[in-house]
């Protein structure tokens, strides 16, 4: 009977194409608007590293001014000072640990035909790659000893390796970056976590960096750092004074494999801060935090308020579209009252008719869902154009979202069709047949 119902639905939709088109358009518009905003919210709030997001922890220490707390005292500072980061690195208390900051510079290719390339860089520890599961095409990460020895080693992104070396294995070759020669130790594959959780302070949805170099080279001024810097008291002149000052500009991640390791690390952090208090630092009450990836994204409000607002508004719009669909379905099904009466006379039970008309509603919903998918694509392109780089890479509908769009359209339309179908199935057949 299912195929029979489908055929009847097709005939009904086709014969009453004007009304059907109105309903499909209403559902399509509602689904299109809803899916556009749901997709943006979904991708913004997605877990970028689901298999180990609960083992990676962002470290926060409250080193701020006792008289003027950071974030009005709600949260400790969102980055660490160079002093604290390097101290934590030296302590080496976590299974893996990574200190990092954003950097930039210019690569000068050996090939005279190639122009210098301005690149974004990440200054980080060796553990960065293993902690965040960065995939390598060629070579591998530099050693921890390279960090300590401040060796001029570099890992290239696939994009830069393609650009300069035509995609060939460049490991072992050298490259000139900001007038310093670096030895290439690895080339990573395309890697773009969404959100870019490892450094939210410089943009949760920016592209991942072009090159990766040891963090220790910042102190040597072999690379130029960038990103956000906040200071609560002035530092002296020169790099050494800046590094020793109370400016926060480094991010610190640790990998802790169990609850016990997390507790131990927190104990260590508390002890570290107590020790620093002896030197006149950390005058505020103890407020050390370890946030796993999803907690950190939540704290940093990666999903923007206006995105949430847009989603709420689009869902309200979908509700309005569905209310219209209910009205149109009611008109259509009640218009079929004589046919419904006749079908009852010929042996259709109320349950049978209910199934038939719900399937017709679902077919309209399916068509509306497909239209909505098309409109979602357009909506996402519109949002990408509106927001520019901030939304780069988020304006895509993956299989999950496409399935959700169709499922949402089907469920909404079936729900919208319940009342009209119920009304239609409860008409008196005798009355309808007589009134013909």
């Amino acid at each position: 009977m299912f195929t029979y119902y489908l055929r009847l639905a097709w005939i009904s939709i086709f014969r009453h194409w004007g009304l059907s088109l109105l309903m499909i358009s209403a559902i399509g518009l509602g689904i299109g608007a809803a899916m556009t905003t749901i997709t943006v919210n979904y991708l913004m709030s997605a877990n970028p590293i689901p298999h180990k997001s609960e083992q990676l922890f962002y470290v926060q220490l409250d080193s701020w001014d006792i008289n003027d707390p950071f974030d009005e005292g709600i949260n400790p500072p969102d980055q660490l000072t160079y002093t604290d980061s390097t101290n934590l690195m030296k302590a080496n208390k976590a299974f893996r640990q990574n200190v990092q900051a954003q950097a930039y510079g210019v690569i000068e290719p050996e090939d005279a035909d190639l122009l210098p390339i301005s690149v974004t860089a990440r200054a980080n520890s060796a553990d960065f790659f293993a902690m965040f599961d960065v995939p390598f095409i060629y070579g591998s990460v530099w050693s921890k000893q390279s960090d300590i020895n401040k060796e001029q080693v570099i890992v290239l992104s696939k994009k830069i390796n393609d650009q300069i070396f035509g995609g060939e294995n460049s490991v072992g070759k050298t490259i000139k970056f900001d007038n310093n020669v670096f030895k290439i130790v690895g080339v990573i594959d395309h890697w773009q976590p969404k959100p870019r959780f490892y450094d939210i302070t410089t943009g949760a949805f920016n592209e991942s960096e072009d090159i990766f170099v040891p963090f220790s080279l910042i102190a040597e001024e072999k690379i130029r750092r960038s990103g956000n810097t906040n200071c609560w008291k002035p530092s002296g002149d020169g790099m050494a004074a800046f590094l020793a000052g109370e400016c926060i500009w480094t991010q610190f991640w640790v990998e802790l494999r169990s609850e016990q390791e997390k507790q131990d690390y927190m104990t260590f952090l508390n002890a570290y801060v107590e020790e620093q208090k002896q030197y006149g630092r950390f005058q505020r009450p103890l407020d050390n935090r370890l946030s796993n990836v999803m907690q950190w994204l939540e704290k940093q409000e990666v999903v923007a308020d206006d995105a949430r607002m847009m989603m709420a508004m689009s869902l309200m719009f979908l509700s309005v579209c569905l209310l219209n669909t209910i009205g149109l379905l009611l008109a259509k099904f009640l218009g079929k009252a004589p046919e419904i009466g006749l079908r009852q006379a010929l042996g259709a039970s109320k349950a049978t008719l209910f199934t038939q008309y719900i399937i017709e509603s679902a077919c309209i919903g399916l068509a509306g869902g497909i239209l909505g998918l098309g409109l979602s694509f357009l909506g996402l392109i519109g949002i990408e154009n509106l927001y520019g780089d901030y939304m780069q890479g988020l304006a895509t509908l993956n299989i999950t979202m496409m399935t959700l769009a169709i499922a949402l359209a089907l469920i909404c339309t079936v729900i919208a069709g319940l009342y009209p179908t119920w009304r239609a199935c409860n008409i008196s057949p005798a009355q309808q047949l007589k009134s013909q």
Partner: protein
Amino acid sequence: MLVMKNINKVFQTADIQTHALRGFNLTVNEGDFVSVTGPSGSGKTTFLNIAGLLETYTNGEFTLDGENIGKLNDNGRSRMRNHKIGFIFQSFNLIPDLNLFDNVDVPLRYRGFNAKERKRRIEENLERVGLASRMKHLPSQLSGGQQQRVAIARALATGPRFLLADEPTGNLDSEMAQAVMSLLEDINKQGTTIIMVTHDAQLAQRSPRTIQVMDGRVSEVDLHLTAANQQAIA
């Protein structure tokens, strides 16, 4: 066999109670051809709707083929209609969006026949009413008489024991009406019980048994005798 004992039907609105049937008693035996006559508003159609399980009755006792109708739920009544009753209406009631083949197919689908059996029955019954060559036509492409013949084919397709006809010739000219009546007589001769509501005394005369409904009650009339008397007087 159709047996109605002391059937009452009351239509209730906020202020008014209308007694459509009052103590209605009737027995129709297998193979009967019964014409039901009576003035407008006498309760003929209400009786036919109750007999066809399209409407419930207020109280009384109604059995169809030994089954107590009062105890059936919606599914049971639908199954009974589909298996045992065929309907013919004054305004044909074909589904305008479906062609003749699909119109006759409707009750067969609810019966659950397979495709081959459905096709056989559709072709056989459309052949029987002389419309086998027009299976793919829409109802709107047929004359009134042809549409009524399709409705008869549809009513017969499931092989019902009872055929209920409500003014089956009401929308037809006299020539078409006679043709449809002849078709019904043929069907009756093959064993189908027919109950026909009609205003047309001439058509009613052609059926072996006629009952008159007046004020919701039934009174048996032998129109053949009356007609014979009239001829003798003339």
